[in-house]
Protein backbone atom coordinates (compact mmCIF):
# COMPACT_ATOMS: atom_id res chain seq x y z
CA UNK A 1 0.00 0.00 0.00
CA UNK A 2 1.50 3.30 -1.03
CA UNK A 3 -0.56 5.92 0.72
CA UNK A 4 1.47 8.88 1.74
CA UNK A 5 -0.07 12.23 2.39
CA UNK A 6 1.74 14.50 4.75
CA UNK A 7 0.28 17.60 6.43
CA UNK A 8 2.69 19.70 4.35
CA UNK A 9 1.37 18.31 1.04
CA UNK A 10 -2.16 19.00 2.28
CA UNK A 11 -1.22 22.63 2.87
CA UNK A 12 0.09 22.81 -0.69
CA UNK A 13 -3.15 21.35 -2.02
CA UNK A 14 -4.96 24.19 -0.26
CA UNK A 15 -3.93 26.23 -3.31
CA UNK A 16 -6.87 24.52 -5.04
CA UNK A 17 -9.22 26.31 -2.66
CA UNK A 18 -7.44 29.58 -3.44
CA UNK A 19 -8.47 29.15 -7.09
CA UNK A 20 -12.10 29.02 -5.96
CA UNK A 21 -11.65 32.08 -3.78
CA UNK A 22 -9.90 33.94 -6.58
CA UNK A 23 -12.80 33.29 -8.97
CA UNK A 24 -15.24 34.39 -6.29
CA UNK A 25 -13.25 37.62 -5.72
CA UNK A 26 -12.67 38.33 -9.40
CA UNK A 27 -16.30 37.80 -10.40
CA UNK A 28 -17.62 39.45 -7.27
CA UNK A 29 -19.68 36.37 -6.38
CA UNK A 30 -19.51 37.10 -2.68
CA UNK A 31 -18.96 33.43 -1.92
CA UNK A 32 -15.38 33.59 -0.55
CA UNK A 33 -16.64 33.79 3.03
CA UNK A 34 -18.80 30.75 2.45
CA UNK A 35 -15.85 28.91 0.88
CA UNK A 36 -13.69 29.63 3.96
CA UNK A 37 -16.53 28.62 6.29
CA UNK A 38 -17.28 25.39 4.41
CA UNK A 39 -13.63 24.38 4.12
CA UNK A 40 -12.90 25.14 7.80
CA UNK A 41 -15.97 23.21 8.86
CA UNK A 42 -15.05 20.26 6.64
CA UNK A 43 -11.48 20.15 7.98
CA UNK A 44 -12.62 20.30 11.62
CA UNK A 45 -15.37 17.71 11.12
CA UNK A 46 -13.03 15.35 9.27
CA UNK A 47 -10.30 15.75 11.89
CA UNK A 48 -12.74 14.89 14.66
CA UNK A 49 -14.19 11.92 12.77
CA UNK A 50 -10.63 10.79 11.94
CA UNK A 51 -9.72 10.59 15.63
CA UNK A 52 -13.10 9.07 16.48
CA UNK A 53 -12.79 6.38 13.80
CA UNK A 54 -9.24 5.58 14.89
CA UNK A 55 -10.57 4.97 18.39
CA UNK A 56 -13.54 2.97 17.05
CA UNK A 57 -11.41 0.75 14.81
CA UNK A 58 -8.95 0.07 17.60
CA UNK A 59 -11.67 -0.63 20.15
CA UNK A 60 -13.48 -3.03 17.74
CA UNK A 61 -16.35 -3.34 20.21
CA UNK A 62 -19.82 -4.41 19.04
CA UNK A 63 -21.66 -2.07 21.41
CA UNK A 64 -19.58 0.96 20.46
CA UNK A 65 -19.95 0.12 16.75
CA UNK A 66 -23.74 -0.29 17.09
CA UNK A 67 -23.92 3.01 18.98
CA UNK A 68 -22.05 4.70 16.15
CA UNK A 69 -24.54 3.24 13.65
CA UNK A 70 -27.39 4.70 15.73
CA UNK A 71 -25.68 8.11 15.97
CA UNK A 72 -25.15 8.26 12.19
CA UNK A 73 -28.75 7.19 11.53
CA UNK A 74 -30.10 9.76 13.99
CA UNK A 75 -27.97 12.56 12.51
CA UNK A 76 -29.18 11.68 9.02
CA UNK A 77 -32.81 11.64 10.26
CA UNK A 78 -32.35 15.04 11.93
CA UNK A 79 -30.95 16.54 8.73
CA UNK A 80 -33.70 15.02 6.58
CA UNK A 81 -36.26 16.40 9.06
CA UNK A 82 -34.77 19.90 8.72
CA UNK A 83 -35.39 19.72 4.96
CA UNK A 84 -39.07 18.92 5.42
CA UNK A 85 -40.23 22.54 5.36
CA UNK A 86 -42.64 22.10 8.27
CA UNK A 87 -44.21 18.76 7.37
CA UNK A 88 -45.61 17.56 10.73
CA UNK A 89 -43.92 14.59 12.40
CA UNK A 90 -41.06 14.76 9.89
CA UNK A 91 -38.45 13.72 12.49
CA UNK A 92 -40.43 10.59 13.33
CA UNK A 93 -41.02 9.85 9.63
CA UNK A 94 -37.33 10.40 8.77
CA UNK A 95 -36.24 8.15 11.63
CA UNK A 96 -38.60 5.33 10.62
CA UNK A 97 -37.44 5.58 6.98
CA UNK A 98 -33.72 5.76 7.74
CA UNK A 99 -33.65 3.16 10.49
CA UNK A 100 -35.62 0.74 8.29
CA UNK A 101 -33.25 1.37 5.36
CA UNK A 102 -30.22 0.72 7.60
CA UNK A 103 -31.77 -2.36 9.16
CA UNK A 104 -32.71 -3.92 5.80
CA UNK A 105 -29.70 -2.92 3.70
CA UNK A 106 -27.03 -3.47 6.33
CA UNK A 107 -28.84 -6.57 7.58
CA UNK A 108 -28.83 -8.21 4.15
CA UNK A 109 -25.16 -7.32 3.59
CA UNK A 110 -24.21 -8.76 6.98
CA UNK A 111 -26.30 -11.92 6.57
CA UNK A 112 -24.96 -12.51 3.05
CA UNK A 113 -21.42 -12.08 4.36
CA UNK A 114 -20.63 -9.21 1.96
CA UNK A 115 -19.79 -7.05 4.95
CA UNK A 116 -18.36 -8.10 8.31
CA UNK A 117 -19.55 -6.66 11.59
CA UNK A 118 -16.34 -4.78 12.22
CA UNK A 119 -16.22 -1.00 12.60
CA UNK A 120 -14.00 -0.42 9.53
CA UNK A 121 -16.75 -1.93 7.36
CA UNK A 122 -20.00 -1.27 9.19
CA UNK A 123 -19.38 2.43 9.89
CA UNK A 124 -18.58 3.54 6.31
CA UNK A 125 -21.39 1.40 4.87
CA UNK A 126 -23.87 2.89 7.38
CA UNK A 127 -22.62 6.34 6.41
CA UNK A 128 -23.31 5.63 2.74
CA UNK A 129 -26.76 4.18 3.44
CA UNK A 130 -27.77 7.06 5.71
CA UNK A 131 -26.30 9.77 3.47
CA UNK A 132 -28.23 8.45 0.51
CA UNK A 133 -31.44 7.92 2.45
CA UNK A 134 -31.15 11.45 3.86
CA UNK A 135 -30.81 13.01 0.40
CA UNK A 136 -33.64 10.87 -0.97
CA UNK A 137 -36.01 11.71 1.89
CA UNK A 138 -35.16 15.42 1.63
CA UNK A 139 -36.04 15.24 -2.07
CA UNK A 140 -39.30 13.40 -1.34
CA UNK A 141 -40.30 16.08 1.18
CA UNK A 142 -39.53 18.85 -1.29
CA UNK A 143 -41.45 17.10 -4.05
CA UNK A 144 -44.44 16.40 -1.82
CA UNK A 145 -44.55 20.05 -0.73
CA UNK A 146 -44.33 21.25 -4.34
CA UNK A 147 -46.83 18.73 -5.72
CA UNK A 148 -49.40 19.30 -2.96
CA UNK A 149 -49.13 23.05 -3.58
CA UNK A 150 -49.30 22.83 -7.39
CA UNK A 151 -52.02 20.18 -7.52
CA UNK A 152 -54.12 21.46 -4.63
CA UNK A 153 -57.24 21.98 -6.75
CA UNK A 154 -56.97 18.51 -8.24
CA UNK A 155 -56.72 16.93 -4.79
CA UNK A 156 -59.74 18.95 -3.61
CA UNK A 157 -61.76 17.73 -6.59
CA UNK A 158 -60.83 14.12 -5.96
CA UNK A 159 -61.75 14.44 -2.28
CA UNK A 160 -65.07 16.04 -3.19
CA UNK A 161 -65.85 13.05 -5.41
CA UNK A 162 -65.47 10.80 -2.38
CA UNK A 163 -61.83 9.74 -2.70
CA UNK A 164 -59.94 8.89 0.47
CA UNK A 165 -56.79 10.95 1.11
CA UNK A 166 -54.68 8.06 -0.19
CA UNK A 167 -56.77 7.73 -3.37
CA UNK A 168 -56.64 11.51 -3.88
CA UNK A 169 -52.86 11.61 -3.37
CA UNK A 170 -51.91 8.47 -5.33
CA UNK A 171 -50.60 10.33 -8.40
CA UNK A 172 -48.61 12.71 -6.18
CA UNK A 173 -47.18 9.82 -4.18
CA UNK A 174 -46.03 8.00 -7.30
CA UNK A 175 -44.41 11.17 -8.62
CA UNK A 176 -42.68 11.99 -5.31
CA UNK A 177 -41.27 8.46 -4.92
CA UNK A 178 -40.09 8.40 -8.53
CA UNK A 179 -38.45 11.83 -8.32
CA UNK A 180 -36.85 10.92 -4.98
CA UNK A 181 -35.25 7.81 -6.47
CA UNK A 182 -34.20 9.44 -9.73
CA UNK A 183 -30.76 10.84 -8.73
CA UNK A 184 -29.64 7.43 -7.40
CA UNK A 185 -30.85 5.69 -10.56
CA UNK A 186 -29.25 8.32 -12.81
CA UNK A 187 -25.92 8.02 -11.05
CA UNK A 188 -26.11 4.20 -11.23
CA UNK A 189 -26.51 4.50 -15.01
CA UNK A 190 -23.29 6.51 -15.40
CA UNK A 191 -21.13 4.49 -13.00
CA UNK A 192 -17.80 3.69 -14.61
CA UNK A 193 -18.61 5.76 -17.68
CA UNK A 194 -18.71 9.23 -16.16
CA UNK A 195 -17.88 8.67 -12.53
CA UNK A 196 -15.56 6.39 -10.65
CA UNK A 197 -17.36 6.42 -7.36
CA UNK A 198 -15.77 7.23 -4.02
CA UNK A 199 -15.60 3.76 -2.59
CA UNK A 200 -14.08 2.21 -5.71
CA UNK A 201 -11.60 5.09 -6.10
CA UNK A 202 -10.69 4.82 -2.41
CA UNK A 203 -10.00 1.11 -2.66
CA UNK A 204 -7.85 1.61 -5.76
CA UNK A 205 -6.01 4.47 -4.02
CA UNK A 206 -5.30 2.03 -1.22
CA UNK A 207 -3.87 -0.47 -3.70
CA UNK A 208 -6.79 -2.83 -4.26
CA UNK A 209 -6.97 -4.40 -7.73
CA UNK A 210 -9.64 -2.71 -9.93
CA UNK A 211 -11.60 -5.94 -10.38
CA UNK A 212 -11.90 -6.38 -6.62
CA UNK A 213 -12.75 -2.70 -6.25
CA UNK A 214 -15.60 -2.96 -8.76
CA UNK A 215 -17.06 -5.93 -6.92
CA UNK A 216 -17.39 -3.76 -3.86
CA UNK A 217 -18.77 -0.94 -5.96
CA UNK A 218 -21.40 -3.23 -7.47
CA UNK A 219 -22.42 -4.26 -3.96
CA UNK A 220 -22.61 -0.60 -2.93
CA UNK A 221 -24.72 0.19 -6.01
CA UNK A 222 -27.19 -2.59 -5.16
CA UNK A 223 -27.30 -1.31 -1.61
CA UNK A 224 -27.90 2.30 -2.63
CA UNK A 225 -30.69 1.42 -5.08
CA UNK A 226 -32.37 -0.54 -2.29
CA UNK A 227 -31.82 2.27 0.20
CA UNK A 228 -33.29 4.97 -2.03
CA UNK A 229 -36.28 2.76 -2.87
CA UNK A 230 -37.00 1.87 0.74
CA UNK A 231 -36.48 5.36 2.15
CA UNK A 232 -38.44 7.21 -0.55
CA UNK A 233 -41.31 4.72 -0.32
CA UNK A 234 -41.61 4.82 3.46
CA UNK A 235 -41.06 8.58 3.80
CA UNK A 236 -43.58 9.46 1.07
CA UNK A 237 -46.22 7.03 2.34
CA UNK A 238 -45.93 8.35 5.88
CA UNK A 239 -45.54 12.03 4.98
CA UNK A 240 -48.52 12.43 2.61
CA UNK A 241 -50.90 11.83 5.52
CA UNK A 242 -49.60 15.00 7.16
CA UNK A 243 -51.14 17.06 4.35
CA UNK A 244 -54.62 16.02 5.52
CA UNK A 245 -56.42 16.59 8.81
CA UNK A 246 -58.55 14.13 10.76
CA UNK A 247 -61.61 15.10 8.68
CA UNK A 248 -59.76 14.02 5.54
CA UNK A 249 -59.50 17.63 4.41
CA UNK A 250 -56.43 19.27 2.89
CA UNK A 251 -54.58 21.31 5.49
CA UNK A 252 -53.85 24.93 4.61
Amino acid at each position, binding site marked *: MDLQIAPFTLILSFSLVLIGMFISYRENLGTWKEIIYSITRAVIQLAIIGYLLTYLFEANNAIITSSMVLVIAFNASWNAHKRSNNISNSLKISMISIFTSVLLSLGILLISGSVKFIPSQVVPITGMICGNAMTTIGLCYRNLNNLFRDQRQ*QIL*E*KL*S*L*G*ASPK*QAATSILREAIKLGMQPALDSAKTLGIVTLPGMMSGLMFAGTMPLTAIMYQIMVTFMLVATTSISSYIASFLAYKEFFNK*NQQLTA
Partner: protein
Amino acid sequence: MIIIEILKIENLGFFAQNKQILDSINLKIQEGEFVSIVGPSGSGKSTLLKIIANIISKTSGNLYFNGKPIEEYNSSDYRKEVSYCFQAPVLFGKTVKDNLSFPYEIRNMEFHKEKSIKYLEEVNLPADYLDKKINTLSGGEKQRIAVIRNVLFQPKVLLLDEITSALDAENRDIIWNWLCNIKANSNMTILMVSHNEDDSKLGDKIISIQDGKLELQEVE
Protein backbone atom coordinates in the same frame (compact mmCIF):
# COMPACT_ATOMS: atom_id res chain seq x y z
CA MET B 1 -95.63 10.68 1.52
CA ILE B 2 -92.94 10.79 4.19
CA ILE B 3 -90.83 13.90 3.97
CA ILE B 4 -87.19 13.20 4.75
CA GLU B 5 -85.05 16.03 6.08
CA ILE B 6 -81.82 15.34 4.25
CA LEU B 7 -79.84 18.28 5.62
CA LYS B 8 -80.34 20.20 8.82
CA ILE B 9 -78.12 23.14 9.71
CA GLU B 10 -78.26 24.55 13.25
CA ASN B 11 -76.58 27.78 14.33
CA LEU B 12 -73.77 27.09 11.92
CA GLY B 13 -70.82 29.49 11.99
CA PHE B 14 -67.48 29.76 10.27
CA PHE B 15 -64.71 31.95 11.58
CA ALA B 16 -61.44 32.34 9.71
CA GLN B 17 -58.69 34.93 9.37
CA ASN B 18 -60.19 37.06 12.15
CA LYS B 19 -63.49 37.27 10.33
CA GLN B 20 -66.91 35.75 10.97
CA ILE B 21 -67.67 34.50 7.47
CA LEU B 22 -70.87 32.64 8.37
CA ASP B 23 -72.95 33.41 11.45
CA SER B 24 -75.83 31.46 13.03
CA ILE B 25 -77.11 29.81 9.87
CA ASN B 26 -80.25 27.74 10.38
CA LEU B 27 -81.60 25.79 7.47
CA LYS B 28 -83.59 22.65 6.78
CA ILE B 29 -83.53 20.98 3.38
CA GLN B 30 -85.82 18.16 2.41
CA GLU B 31 -84.90 15.28 0.18
CA GLY B 32 -85.52 16.04 -3.48
CA GLU B 33 -85.55 19.83 -3.06
CA PHE B 34 -83.78 22.11 -5.52
CA VAL B 35 -82.46 25.07 -3.55
CA SER B 36 -80.77 28.15 -5.01
CA ILE B 37 -78.47 30.15 -2.78
CA VAL B 38 -78.02 33.75 -3.82
CA GLY B 39 -76.18 36.73 -2.39
CA PRO B 40 -73.42 39.19 -3.21
CA SER B 41 -69.79 38.13 -3.74
CA GLY B 42 -68.01 37.39 -0.48
CA SER B 43 -71.26 36.87 1.43
CA GLY B 44 -70.32 33.29 2.37
CA LYS B 45 -72.40 31.28 -0.14
CA SER B 46 -69.52 29.16 -1.40
CA THR B 47 -68.19 28.71 2.13
CA LEU B 48 -71.55 27.30 3.20
CA LEU B 49 -71.55 24.89 0.27
CA LYS B 50 -67.96 23.79 1.06
CA ILE B 51 -68.88 23.18 4.69
CA ILE B 52 -71.87 21.08 3.63
CA ALA B 53 -69.50 19.20 1.28
CA ASN B 54 -67.08 18.64 4.18
CA ILE B 55 -64.24 20.21 2.22
CA ILE B 56 -63.80 22.62 5.12
CA SER B 57 -65.17 22.30 8.65
CA LYS B 58 -67.59 24.60 10.45
CA THR B 59 -66.20 26.34 13.51
CA SER B 60 -69.52 26.33 15.41
CA GLY B 61 -73.03 24.89 15.27
CA ASN B 62 -74.30 21.59 13.94
CA LEU B 63 -74.76 19.99 10.57
CA TYR B 64 -76.88 16.87 10.18
CA PHE B 65 -77.12 14.65 7.12
CA ASN B 66 -79.97 12.13 7.12
CA GLY B 67 -80.53 12.85 10.80
CA LYS B 68 -76.95 12.09 11.87
CA PRO B 69 -74.27 14.68 12.75
CA ILE B 70 -71.67 14.98 9.98
CA GLU B 71 -68.94 14.04 12.47
CA GLU B 72 -70.38 10.52 12.70
CA TYR B 73 -69.74 9.81 9.03
CA ASN B 74 -66.50 8.67 7.45
CA SER B 75 -65.57 11.75 5.40
CA SER B 76 -64.96 10.00 2.09
CA ASP B 77 -68.18 7.94 2.40
CA TYR B 78 -70.06 11.15 3.20
CA ARG B 79 -68.65 12.92 0.15
CA LYS B 80 -69.83 10.09 -2.09
CA GLU B 81 -73.36 10.97 -0.93
CA VAL B 82 -72.93 14.75 -0.77
CA SER B 83 -70.98 15.64 -3.88
CA TYR B 84 -69.54 19.09 -4.58
CA CYS B 85 -68.85 20.46 -8.07
CA PHE B 86 -66.38 23.34 -8.36
CA GLN B 87 -66.85 26.61 -10.20
CA ALA B 88 -63.74 26.16 -12.38
CA PRO B 89 -63.05 22.44 -12.21
CA VAL B 90 -59.67 20.97 -12.99
CA LEU B 91 -59.71 17.74 -14.94
CA PHE B 92 -56.99 15.28 -14.00
CA GLY B 93 -54.99 12.61 -15.78
CA LYS B 94 -54.59 12.78 -19.54
CA THR B 95 -57.94 11.92 -21.09
CA VAL B 96 -61.65 12.36 -20.44
CA LYS B 97 -61.76 8.66 -19.56
CA ASP B 98 -59.24 9.19 -16.73
CA ASN B 99 -61.80 11.54 -15.17
CA LEU B 100 -64.90 9.45 -15.75
CA SER B 101 -63.25 6.25 -14.55
CA PHE B 102 -62.10 7.88 -11.30
CA PRO B 103 -65.46 7.53 -9.49
CA TYR B 104 -65.31 3.78 -10.32
CA GLU B 105 -61.68 3.47 -9.20
CA ILE B 106 -62.38 4.92 -5.77
CA ARG B 107 -65.23 2.44 -5.35
CA ASN B 108 -63.05 -0.45 -6.56
CA MET B 109 -65.47 -1.05 -9.40
CA GLU B 110 -64.95 -1.74 -13.06
CA PHE B 111 -65.42 1.23 -15.39
CA HIS B 112 -68.89 1.29 -17.00
CA LYS B 113 -68.06 2.64 -20.45
CA GLU B 114 -71.60 2.59 -21.82
CA LYS B 115 -72.95 4.73 -19.00
CA SER B 116 -70.21 7.34 -19.49
CA ILE B 117 -70.89 7.45 -23.24
CA LYS B 118 -74.62 7.82 -22.58
CA TYR B 119 -73.98 10.78 -20.27
CA LEU B 120 -71.49 12.35 -22.69
CA GLU B 121 -74.06 12.16 -25.47
CA GLU B 122 -76.76 13.60 -23.23
CA VAL B 123 -74.62 16.71 -22.73
CA ASN B 124 -73.98 16.96 -26.49
CA LEU B 125 -70.51 15.43 -26.49
CA PRO B 126 -69.82 12.56 -28.95
CA ALA B 127 -68.80 9.10 -27.74
CA ASP B 128 -65.24 9.46 -29.01
CA TYR B 129 -64.70 12.26 -26.46
CA LEU B 130 -63.97 9.52 -23.97
CA ASP B 131 -60.45 9.22 -25.37
CA LYS B 132 -60.00 12.93 -25.99
CA LYS B 133 -57.03 14.66 -24.34
CA ILE B 134 -58.19 17.02 -21.62
CA ASN B 135 -55.92 19.84 -22.76
CA THR B 136 -57.83 20.06 -26.06
CA LEU B 137 -61.21 20.71 -24.38
CA SER B 138 -62.97 24.06 -24.13
CA GLY B 139 -64.10 25.50 -20.78
CA GLY B 140 -67.70 24.46 -21.43
CA GLU B 141 -66.70 20.92 -22.33
CA LYS B 142 -64.54 20.62 -19.20
CA GLN B 143 -67.41 21.79 -17.02
CA ARG B 144 -69.81 19.29 -18.60
CA ILE B 145 -67.34 16.44 -17.96
CA ALA B 146 -66.80 17.63 -14.39
CA VAL B 147 -70.54 17.51 -13.69
CA ILE B 148 -70.82 14.03 -15.22
CA ARG B 149 -67.97 13.00 -12.88
CA ASN B 150 -70.13 14.09 -9.93
CA VAL B 151 -73.31 12.29 -10.99
CA LEU B 152 -72.02 9.02 -12.51
CA PHE B 153 -72.86 7.55 -9.12
CA GLN B 154 -75.85 9.65 -8.26
CA PRO B 155 -75.27 11.38 -4.92
CA LYS B 156 -78.09 12.06 -2.49
CA VAL B 157 -77.13 15.74 -2.48
CA LEU B 158 -75.45 17.55 -5.35
CA LEU B 159 -73.75 20.86 -4.51
CA LEU B 160 -73.17 23.13 -7.48
CA ASP B 161 -70.93 26.14 -6.90
CA GLU B 162 -71.51 28.65 -9.71
CA ILE B 163 -70.82 25.92 -12.22
CA THR B 164 -72.09 27.91 -15.18
CA SER B 165 -70.67 31.33 -14.30
CA ALA B 166 -67.91 31.17 -16.90
CA LEU B 167 -70.01 29.57 -19.61
CA ASP B 168 -71.90 30.95 -22.58
CA ALA B 169 -75.69 30.64 -22.85
CA GLU B 170 -75.52 27.52 -25.01
CA ASN B 171 -73.31 25.59 -22.60
CA ARG B 172 -75.36 26.80 -19.65
CA ASP B 173 -78.57 25.51 -21.23
CA ILE B 174 -77.01 22.14 -22.04
CA ILE B 175 -75.89 21.62 -18.44
CA TRP B 176 -79.12 22.82 -16.78
CA ASN B 177 -81.39 20.89 -19.13
CA TRP B 178 -79.43 17.74 -18.46
CA LEU B 179 -79.34 18.23 -14.68
CA CYS B 180 -83.06 19.11 -14.52
CA ASN B 181 -83.79 15.97 -16.51
CA ILE B 182 -81.81 13.83 -14.06
CA LYS B 183 -83.49 15.61 -11.18
CA ALA B 184 -86.94 14.97 -12.63
CA ASN B 185 -86.25 11.25 -12.76
CA SER B 186 -84.76 10.90 -9.31
CA ASN B 187 -85.01 12.12 -5.76
CA MET B 188 -81.63 13.86 -5.80
CA THR B 189 -81.40 17.06 -3.75
CA ILE B 190 -79.61 19.98 -5.39
CA LEU B 191 -78.11 23.01 -3.67
CA MET B 192 -76.85 25.57 -6.11
CA VAL B 193 -74.97 28.82 -5.72
CA SER B 194 -75.43 31.20 -8.59
CA HIS B 195 -75.00 34.82 -9.55
CA ASN B 196 -77.15 34.39 -12.57
CA GLU B 197 -80.77 35.34 -11.97
CA ASP B 198 -82.14 32.91 -14.57
CA ASP B 199 -80.17 30.05 -13.00
CA SER B 200 -81.43 30.88 -9.51
CA LYS B 201 -85.02 30.65 -10.71
CA LEU B 202 -84.49 26.97 -11.54
CA GLY B 203 -84.66 26.18 -7.83
CA ASP B 204 -87.94 25.54 -6.06
CA LYS B 205 -86.63 27.47 -3.07
CA ILE B 206 -84.34 30.49 -3.05
CA ILE B 207 -82.34 31.48 0.01
CA SER B 208 -80.24 34.58 0.30
CA ILE B 209 -77.08 35.10 2.29
CA GLN B 210 -75.90 38.59 3.19
CA ASP B 211 -72.72 39.21 5.20
CA GLY B 212 -72.64 35.62 6.43
CA LYS B 213 -76.26 35.58 7.61
CA LEU B 214 -79.29 33.91 6.16
CA GLU B 215 -81.51 36.77 5.06
CA LEU B 216 -84.56 35.31 3.50
CA GLN B 217 -86.14 32.14 2.30
CA GLU B 218 -88.40 32.43 -0.60
CA VAL B 219 -90.47 29.55 -1.87
CA GLU B 220 -91.28 29.71 -5.55
